[in-house]
């Protein structure tokens, strides 16, 4: 009996291994290792023609970090990226909330169709969506302005806000609203006291889905932005694809990673605080 149970155990372990190992291995090779290499690259010197200088001749150095923190401009770009991401998130929320509410409050049969109508534009490539705004804003003389950048960012990321909100709102029990109404609460009070607090998890996950991609986006400022609309994503891209300074690009990437982790941690903290209270 013991023997067979240990065979079964071994079999179970083997199954677990066979199922877990392939995806884990793939991601170690194509995600973890590259991430570590990027971290390591930030401690190298740029090569004469770009790339990295040979390790043997220059060794490791903090030069790239000294360069980044020596001056406030790089941090300024990071702060500006955060501001753009925050503004985009808020505008997305303001646009998405009524839309999601409307969908939830429409008859069940229509809901799927309305959701589909939201997903459809999202199914076109985001470059096409940016290009659409180039066409609109050019004649209006608004192209190459901060406004254009925000409009483009919102347009590209809006569905990421709508869908989680909708998923959340859909689960609300209408009985709660009816009870509030019976207790004499007006529409605004019902929203403020019932709908909004209940929807916070949806708001938070939507916010994360908008905020983080905007932080790294370089195509929108590049195509729609003016002389001052440089975000951290553009800086990183420039180091690799214009300026040939890989260590600086890697250091800036790590800076962005740290910023994103901080945001994720904060949002996890908020969510946990919510569910605890």
């Amino acid at each position: 009996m013991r023997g067979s149970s240990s065979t079964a155990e071994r079999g179970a372990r083997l199954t677990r291994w066979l199922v877990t190992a392939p995806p884990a291995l793939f991601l170690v090779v194509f995600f973890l290792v590259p991430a570590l290499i990027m971290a390591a690259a930030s401690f190298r010197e740029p090569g004469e023609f770009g790339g990295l200088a040979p390790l043997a001749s220059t060794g490791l150095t903090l030069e790239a970090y000294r360069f980044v923190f020596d001056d406030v401009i790089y941090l300024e770009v990071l702060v500006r990226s955060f501001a753009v991401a925050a503004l985009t998130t808020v505008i997305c929320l303001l646009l998405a909330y009524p839309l999601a509410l409307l969908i939830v409050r429409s008859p069940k049969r229509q809901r799927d169709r309305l959701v589909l109508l939201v997903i459809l534009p999202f199914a076109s490539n985001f470059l096409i969506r940016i290009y659409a705004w180039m066409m609109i804003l050019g004649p209006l003389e608004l192209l190459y302005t901060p406004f254009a950048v925000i409009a483009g960012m919102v347009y590209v990321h809006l569905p990421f806000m709508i869908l989680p909100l909708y998923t959340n709102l859909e689960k609300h029990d209408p009985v709660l609203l009816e009870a509030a109404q019976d207790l004499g609460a007006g529409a605004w009070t019902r929203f403020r006291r019932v709908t909004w607090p209940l929807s916070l998890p949806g708001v938070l996950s939507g916010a994360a889905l908008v905020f983080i991609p905007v932080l790294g986006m370089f195509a929108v400022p590049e195509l729609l932005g003016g002389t001052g609309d440089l975000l951290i994503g553009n800086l990183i891209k420039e180091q690799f694809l214009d300026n040939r300074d890989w260590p600086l690009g890697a250091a800036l990437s790590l800076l962005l990673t740290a910023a994103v982790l901080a945001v994720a941690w904060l949002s996890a903290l908020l969510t946990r605080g919510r569910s605890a209270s």
Partner: protein
Amino acid sequence: MKHSAWLWTAALAAYAFLYVPLAIVVLFSFNDSELNASWVRFTTRWYAKLLGDPDMLQAAANSLLIAIASSTIATILGTMAGIALHRWRPRLLPFLVLTPVSMPEILLGVSLLLFFRQVLDLTLGLFSILAAHVTFSIGFVAIIVRARLAGMDEEIFAAARDLGATPWRTFRRVTLPLILPGIVAGFLMSFTLSIDDFVITFFVAGVGVTTLPLQIYSMIKVAVTPEVNAVSTLLMALTLTLIALAARFAPDTLRRSP
């Protein structure tokens, strides 16, 4: 409801915001003007030009091939990851699976570029794009499959085991049919992600292997003609068809996917 008036207005505004720009793109794909600033007259010549453009056709073929191959691989690996996450709650795997999904794309693009160039000294091309696309798709498939498993009654699997089914048989006969909608949803999701990806592909694409988004980017940046509008319109029509098919054959995937 009393406030339905303003709700309708706001929602209509949001829908208009979503659709008007795309309508303009479609409209101006039929404009007989190279500069395409104002409407001149109706033409379909940009579509003719597009269909005779070997670079464009090649890019479309590349995009399609990469999307099919990468979403197939990602679906297999992602399903395994989803099952593993659900069944054994491993410690390292969630980090590996979920981080690529939640990081800004540029970081994955840049780190893969460094990896391919600095470590593998690889000639960038189909393989590098494929590997990159699989990497960012696995997480999405895993999340969808895990969500599907989480909604399921554990008793079924226990019952199958008690009846003496081997793990493989349990999987083939019980688990797989049950999570199949999730797998299909995951496949469609990673297909869309792959065929749409610009940022990561931008960093890991090589000479002679262009994808449609890269081609569109280069056209927008360098020489905008209504050909861009035409290719955009066709792409939208394609995704529309895909979504219609998905809605017909796997209705619940649409609601669950993102």
